[in-house]
């Protein structure tokens, strides 16, 4: 019987000819990623070895990546102490894929992994972060796990008792029109599927609009697959995947490229016509509360946030800088920009984007998760409204349960910054 991309990937990883949905496998892990919650992973990891008479040693330091991004630079002594413990562990275990609070290597984990070529097609990637689904954009089977699960991976090098998931095939026909972006597409899809519509499933992306999309856009789609409950999102690798890994991530040599079988069985097929799509907004307080921009236009904004593992890449920054160049962020609205990595920040500096945004009144902060999850900077006041290019708008998400968060594309964020209200980028000249 034909296999989906994920079935095929899992079969190859386990050295089998066939795996079926529902099969239970022990999966070898190619890359295990953590951020500051490595502090808890270390605690659980050491606990596993208690009373075994064996020293706690990770299975393979080459396959572990740790990136500081959630609270950089540390906002409290507690975080600073956690980061210190992690640094000591990294040195002790010889973990080299470690990205500290540094301008020459730092950034958000879901940007650091792709841009450093740590992820390849056909790999199994786990991260102690729910947005690990991002890396499906490069053809990996990538998903989030908890800290104790990660501790088990560090000890064993494998994931135990994984049930082979079924897949939902999403076919995106046509082309995205001007002013409409991959973010609008994924918000539309989450609205269609609902916040739990893809629970325990993989979303496999196909169609003309996906083939034409840059890796940067595919990262946006897979990043937010988890907001429909999906275990993973995946784009079967193609020429664009090869181009990105070779030209932008510096990965030499051949890649393990394959696609799903033509007769693969999907649990559901969803078709979207990209030509008909307009900018989408996820309204408070769930990501699946998605509306067309025409229904929310004019909403007054206190804060606009551009950045995150979803939309803090150079093409996102470029859209914002070009819109703001020579103009001003509306009085009464604050605009915060968090590039997703220092490599992106540096490129934005070279291209003059940082100057464009700062002169327009935006505050450009250091790369990191920033205000997305309300732990570091840019918290909201009571009854304030924010518009953000981030991925979640849950009650309390941006640090205040009394505030509202709307989600959008960078183009909508930029257009709205000029007016101070939610605005359609197709109407800004």
């Amino acid at each position, binding site marked *: 019987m034909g296999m989906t991309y994920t079935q095929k990937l899992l079969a190859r990883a386990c050295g089998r000819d066939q795996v079926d949905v529902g099969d*239970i496998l022990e999966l070898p892990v190619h890359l295990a990623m953590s951020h*500051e*919650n490595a*502090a*808890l992973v270390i*605690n*659980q990891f050491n*606990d*596993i*070895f*208690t*009373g*075994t008479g*064996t020293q706690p040693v990770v299975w393979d330091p080459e396959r572990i990546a740790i990136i500081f991004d*959630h*609270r950089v630079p540390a906002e*409290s002594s*507690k*975080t600073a102490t*956690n980061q210190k413990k992690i640094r000591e562990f990294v040195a002790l275990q010889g973990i080299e894929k470690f990205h500290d609070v540094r301008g020459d290597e730092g950034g958000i984990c879901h940007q650091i992994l792709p841009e450093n070529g740590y992820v390849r097609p056909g790999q199994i990637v786990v*991260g*102690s*972060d*729910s947005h690990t689904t991002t890396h499906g954009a490069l053809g990996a089977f990538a998903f*989030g*796990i*908890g*800290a*104790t*699960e990660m*501790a*088990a991976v560090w*000890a*064993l090098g494998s994931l*135990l*008792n*994984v*049930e082979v998931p079924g897949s939902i095939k999403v076919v995106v026909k046509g082309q995205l029109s001007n002013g409409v972006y991959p973010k609008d597409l994924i918000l539309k899809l989450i609205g269609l599927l609902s*916040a*739990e519509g893809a*629970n*325990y499933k993989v979303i496999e992306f196909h169609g003309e609009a996906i083939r034409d999309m840059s890796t940067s856009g595919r990262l946006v789609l897979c990043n937010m697959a988890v907001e429909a*409950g999906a*275990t993973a999102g995946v784009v079967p690798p193609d020429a664009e995947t090869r181009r990105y890994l070779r030209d932008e991530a510096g990965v030499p040599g051949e890649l393990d490229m394959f696609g799903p079988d033509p007769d693969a069985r999907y649990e559901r097929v969803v078709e979207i016509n990209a030509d008909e799509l307009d900018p989408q907004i996820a309204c408070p307080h*769930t990501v*699946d509360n998605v509306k067309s921009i025409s229904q929310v236009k004019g909403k007054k904004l206190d804060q606009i946030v551009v950045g995150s593992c979803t939309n803090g890449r150079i093409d996102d920054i470029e859209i914002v800088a070009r819109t703001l160049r020579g103009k001003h962020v509306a009085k009464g609205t604050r605009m915060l920009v968090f590039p997703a990595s220092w490599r992106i920040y540096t490129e934005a500096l070279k291209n003059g984007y940082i100057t464009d945004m700062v002169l327009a009144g935006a505050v450009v902060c250091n790369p990191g998760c920033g205000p997305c*999850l*309300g*732990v570091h900077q840019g918290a909201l006041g009571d009854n304030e409204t924010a518009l953000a290019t981030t991925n*979640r708008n*849950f*009650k*309390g*998400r941006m*640090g205040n*349960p009394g505030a509202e968060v709307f989600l959008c594309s960078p183009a909508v964020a930029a257009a709205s910054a000029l007016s101070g209200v939610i605005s359609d980028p197709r109407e800004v000249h």
Partner: protein
Amino acid sequence: MNAGKVVLKLGNDISTDIIYPGRYMATVLPTETPKFAFADDAEFNRALNENKVPAGSFILAGLNFGCGSSREQAASCIKGYELTVIARNFARIFLQNSINVGLKMIICPDIEASEGDELEVRAGEVHNLTTGKSFAIQPLPKARQAIIDAGGLIPYVRKLLLDRAA
């Protein structure tokens, strides 16, 4: 298994940001996380911290409980009070984290109960003693049962390492 009252009734899509707000994420140890359980619900958080919620009580939720972040604090903070979560279904990572840290959770797709109702769990059903109705429990994913039986992932992996070394 156990009996107790529904002490908190919640709707669908309760995110980990509601269960354990992001701003407390620098606190990681299971011994310390219970203090911040449902921190944005001041009344319930106070009741928990003042030990007014008996162990064995139930939190009742709708679909997709624990969606969002992978933060394990969302499971360990409830586990700290030995509460049981009953939901119509659970988000994947939360379900896995709960099993891994030993939080009791029950998938009960048709559950009907109100805050204050007395529930009893036995023989594959949740009995609402207040209304006299019973609701079938959906078994947890079979792939996870061995971990539950071992008392959590840490003892499970510890034994596995010893077995594989032998």
